[in-house]
C-alpha cells in the first residue's frame, strides 16, 4: 500500500505546554485511519497539525516533520494555503457559513480563491453534493441558507464544501459527535464510500465507530501515541496494556 502522509517526531505546543510528544505514524493512501483516545489526549491537535491549522491559534508551535507525498509541509518555502487545499477538514460541530446559501457554501473554497466561471462552479457544486450524498435532498433549495438544514445535512454540506476544492486527504474531527444515530450512520456510510477516492483520517470518541469504518487505528494517551496498527489487531489483540484498558472500557 502506498504511503501518503508520514509524521516523524511531531511535537505540538500551546504556549509552553506540550500537547503532542514525538508522534511517529505513517498514513496509507485510500484507507481510513482512526485516531482514538480519551478526551484531551491530543487527537484534535494531531490532525490539526496535518493541515497546518494548529498554527492559526495564537502562541502555538510545531516541531518535527509532516511529509505529504514525501515533501515536508512545514518546510519554510511551503505555503500553508496550498497544503490546506490538498488536505480538507471536517469539524466536530457542523459549521456551514451562516450568511451563505447552500450553493455558495460549497462553492466558497473556489469562489473566494477567484474562480468565477459559472458553468465550472455549477458542475463542481453538483458533483461535490452528489459525492457527499446530499444532492437529492437539497437540489430544489440550493439557494436556501446553509444553516436551514438539519445537523446531519449540515455536516454533509461541510463535507461537500471540502470536496469542492479537490483535496487528496480528508481529516474528520469527531464528525458525528453532535449528530443523532441515523445521521451518524449516514456519515459512516459516506466515509466508507469516500475512501475509494481519498485518504481519510478520522478522530472518534466512539470505539464501535472506529471498528466499523477504519482500517488502521492509532491509540493516543496524554499526548503520546501508544499503539498503532491494523484496526482488527488493535481491537482484538492490543500489545500495550493501556490500549487494552482503554478499549475494554476500564478508563476514558
Amino acid at each position, binding site marked *: 500500500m502506498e504511503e501518503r502522509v508520514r509524521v516523524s517526531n511531531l511535537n505540538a505546543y500551546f504556549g509552553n505546554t506540550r500537547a503532542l510528544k514525538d508522534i511517529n505514524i505513517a498514513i496509507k493512501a485510500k484507507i481510513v485511519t482512526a485516531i482514538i483516545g480519551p478526551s484531551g489526549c491530543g487527537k484534535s491537535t494531531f490532525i490539526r497539525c496535518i493541515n497546518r491549522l494548529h498554527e492559526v491559534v495564537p502562541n502555538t508551535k510545531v516541531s518535527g516533520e509532516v511529509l505529504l507525498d514525501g515533501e515536508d509541509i512545514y518546510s519554510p518555502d511551503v505555503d500553508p494555503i496550498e497544503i490546506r487545499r490538498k488536505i480538507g477538514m471536517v469539524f466536530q460541530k457542523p459549521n456551514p457559513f451562516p450568511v451563505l446559501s447552500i450553493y455558495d457554501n460549497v462553492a466558497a473554497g473556489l469562489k473566494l480563491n477567484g474562480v468565477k466561471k459559472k458553468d465550472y462552479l455549477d458542475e463542481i457544486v453538483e458533483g461535490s453534493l452528489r459525492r457527499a450524498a446530499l444532492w437529492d435532498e437539497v437540489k430544489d433549495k440550493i439557494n436556501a441558507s446553509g444553516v436551514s438544514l438539519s445537523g446531519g445535512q449540515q455536516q454533509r454540506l461541510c463535507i461537500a464544501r471540502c470536496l469542492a*476544492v479537490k483535496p487528496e486527504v480528508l481529516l474528520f474531527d469527531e464528525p458525528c459527535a453532535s449528530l443523532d444515530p441515523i445521521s451518524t450512520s449516514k456519515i459512516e456510510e459516506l466515509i466508507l464510500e469516500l475512501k475509494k477516492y481519498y485518504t481519510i483520517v478520522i478522530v472518534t470518541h466512539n470505539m464501535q465507530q472506529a471498528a466499523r469504518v477504519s482500517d488502521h487505528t492509532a491509540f493516543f494517551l496524554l499526548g503520546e501515541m501508544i499503539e498503532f496498527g491494523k484496526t482488527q489487531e488493535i481491537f482484538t489483540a492490543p500489545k500495550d496494556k493501556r490500549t487494552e484498558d482503554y478499549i475494554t472500557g476500564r478508563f476514558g
Partner: protein
Amino acid sequence: MNTYKRRKIASKLMCAAAFLCAFLTLVPLISIFGYVFAKGIASINPDFFTNLPRPVGEPGGGMSNAIVGTLILIGLSCLWAIPLGIIGGIFLSEFGNNKLGTTVRFTADVLNGVPSIVIGIFAYTLFVLPMKSFSAISGAFALGMIMIPTIMRTTEEMLRMVPRTLREAALALGISQFRTTVSIVLRTALPGILTGILLAIARIAGETAPLLFTAFGNRFWHQSLTQPIAALPLQIFVYAISPFDDWRRQAWAGAFVLIVIIFLISFISRFVIGLHYKSPSSR
C-alpha cells in the same frame, strides 16, 4: 400564612413594578416625538423643502439648503469615518491582542468621551485656521471624529462574536486570511456593524456644538465644500433662540425633519441589508 401565597403576591407586585418602569422609560421618548410632530407639522409645506431662508418679516421661506447641507455633512463624515472605523475594528479584533491594541482601544474610549465641542475646536485649529475659512470639510472632519470610536468598537465587538470555528472552516478550505476576514467574518458580522454605524450617524446628525466653528452655517446655497455650509441643527439653533414667532415655528419643523431623516436612514439601511440576507446567493 403560607409562603407560597406570599411569593405569589410578591411576584405580582414585582411584575407590575417592572412594567411600570418599562412604561416610564417610554414616556419621554413618545412625548418628544409627539411634541415635535405636533409643533413641527404645522410649518411643513413644500416651500419648507424647496426655499432658502427668508429675512425676518418676510413670510414663507424654508430650510432646503440646511436639509441638503446636513445630508452632505453626514455623507462626507461617513466617507472617511466608516472605512477608518471598520478597518480599525478589524485590527482590534484580529490583531489587537497586544500593547498596541490595548492602547488603541483605550484611546478610542477616551475619544468617545471627549465633549463634542472640544472636537470642534480641534477641527477649527486643524482646518479652519490654515484654510482661513469655515467649511463643509472641517465640519465633516469633526463629525467623523465623533463617529470613529463608536464604529470601531462595535465592529470589534461584532467580529469577536463570530465563532472561531467559522474562521477555521474558511482557513481549512485554503482561503487566505484576508479573504476569510473580509468575505466570511466581516460578512457574518455585517448586521451588527451596520447597527453601530447607524447609531453613530444618528448621533452626529443632531450634533450642533462642533459645527458652530467648522461648518458654521450659511443662509444661502454653499458654492463648494471649502465654504461654510448650512446644517439643520445649526439652523434650528439659530431659529429657536430668535425672538420671531415665524422662525421659531420653522425651528420645530426643522427638528421634525431631522428626526425623520435619521429614521429614514436607519429604516432604509435595515431594509437593504434585510433583502441581502434573505437571498444570500444573489450578491
